[in-house]
C-alpha cells in the first residue's frame, strides 16, 4: 500500500524543532512540502541559518519519524527560495511567546534594508514576552543560537531571547 501525501504531512505534523521544542518544524516553515517525486514520496525541507547545527538533527528526526510510522520517503534539502521567518505560522509565534521567546517581526521590505546606516532610524519595539512591556533594549544582536538576539525588559528586568527576522 502506498502512503498518501496527506498521511505523510499528518505523520510529521507534530515533529518538534530540536532546539526550541515548543514549536513544530511545520510552524517554523522548515518543512516546506511533501510531494510525489520520480522514485516515490519526497519530504522537502529548507535550512534556516547556513551554519545552524540543528539541521542534521532535523533531517535525522524526520527520517526516524517516517521510519517508525512505516512511511517510505526521501528527504530533500532545498535552498531557494531562502527560508524566512515570515513563513512562521501565527500559532507558532504564539507558542514562542508563551515559551518566553519574543517572536520575529515581519522582515523589512527589500528597498528598506539597512545599507548605509547601522539600524533603522526608528527600530520597531520588541515587546517583552513575560510582561508585554515595549520598554525593552537590545543587549546583543546574537543570542544563545544564531537565530536569536538577546534583549532585556526595562520594566520587569527580565532578559529574554528575540527570534530575529531573517
Amino acid at each position: 500500500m502506498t502512503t498518501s501525501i496527506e498521511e505523510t504531512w499528518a505523520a510529521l505534523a507534530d515533529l518538534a524543532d530540536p532546539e526550541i521544542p515548543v514549536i513544530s518544524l511545520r510552524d517554523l516553515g522548515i518543512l516546506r512540502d511533501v510531494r510525489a517525486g520520480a522514485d516515490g514520496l519526497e519530504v522537502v525541507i529548507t535550512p534556516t541559518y547556513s551554519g545552524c547545527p540543528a539541521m542534521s538533527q532535523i533531517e535525522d528526526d524526520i527520517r526516524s519519524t517516517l521510519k517508525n510510522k512505516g512511511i517510505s520517503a526521501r528527504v530533500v534539502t532545498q535552498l531557494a527560495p531562502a527560508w524566512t521567518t515570515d513563513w512562521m505560522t501565527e500559532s507558532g509565534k504564539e507558542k514562542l511567546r508563551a515559551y518566553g521567546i519574543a517572536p520575529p517581526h515581519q522582515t523589512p521590505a527589500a528597498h528598506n534594508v539597512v545599507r548605509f546606516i547601522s539600524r533603522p532610524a526608528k527600530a520597531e519595539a520588541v515587546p517583552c514576552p513575560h510582561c508585554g512591556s515595549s520598554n525593552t533594549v537590545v543587549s546583543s544582536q546574537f543570542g544563545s543560537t544564531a537565530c536569536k538576539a538577546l534583549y532585556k525588559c526595562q520594566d520587569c528586568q527580565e532578559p529574554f531571547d528575540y527570534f530575529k527576522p531573517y
Partner: protein
Amino acid sequence: MSAATDYLLHLADNALVLGQRNAEWCGHGPILEEDIALSNVSLDLIGQARLLYQLVASLQGGGATEDKLAYFRDTGEFRNYTLLELPHSGPLSGYAKGSLDYGTTIVRNFLYSALMALLWEALEKSANADLAAIAGKSLKEVRYHLRHSRDWLVRLGDGTEESHARTQAALDHLMPYTQEFWTSSPAETAAVAAGIGVDLQTLKADWDGIVDAALTEATLKRPLLEGYVSEGKKGLHSEHLGFLLAEMQSLARAHPNGNW
C-alpha cells in the same frame, strides 16, 4: 577547472578562513555577549563555506567532498583574500605572536561584511542558480554581521582615547589589504564573462559609501592607500595562512576518513 569552481572556491575560502579566524575568540571574548556574537558569526561563515564547498564538490565529481576541499588542500591552493587570514593583531611576521586585539577583529569584519552585503545581493542574480540560492541565504546573514561590526566600529572609534587609537591603528594596518578587492583575478574575470560572478568594480562606489559614512560616525580617518597589493585570491598568501590551516586541518589529517 571550470570558471565556476574556481570562483566558488574563492568565495568558499573567504568564508572558511574568516570563520576560522573569528572562532579564535571563542572562549576568549572581551565580554560574554561578544564571545557569543563572534561564535555565531563564525557559525554562519562556516555554514556558507560548507554550502559552497558542497556545490564545488558536486560540480567536480570524482569523489570530491566538502571535507577534502576544506581539510586536504594546502596554502597555495586557497583562494581567499589575504585580509582574512591575518592575525587579530597589528603587523606581525613569521612566528611572532601578538595579543588578540578586538579593534583589528572589528575593523576586518566591518570591511569584509560591507563588501559581502553588496556582493551577495548582486550574486542573487548569478547565472548559476545554486550560487544564487546560496547568495540569497548568505545575504540575510551578512546584514547582521555588518550591523554588528559597524556598531562596534562606531563604539570603539568614538570611544575612549585608547579604543580610538587602537581602532585607527587597525584601520591603518588593514585598509591597504582591501585594494585586493578591486583587482581582478583570472577566476573572477572568467566567472564574470560566464555570467556567474560579479565585477566588483560595479560595487566600489557603494562600498566606499558604506565605509566612509561609518568612519565619519566613528571619528576615524580613512588612510590613503598605496604600496603592495596583496594577491591571496590568486594563491599567493602571507606567512599567516599556513599556521591557520595547520591548526584547522590537523585533526582531519591525523584521522583521514574519520567519522564523528
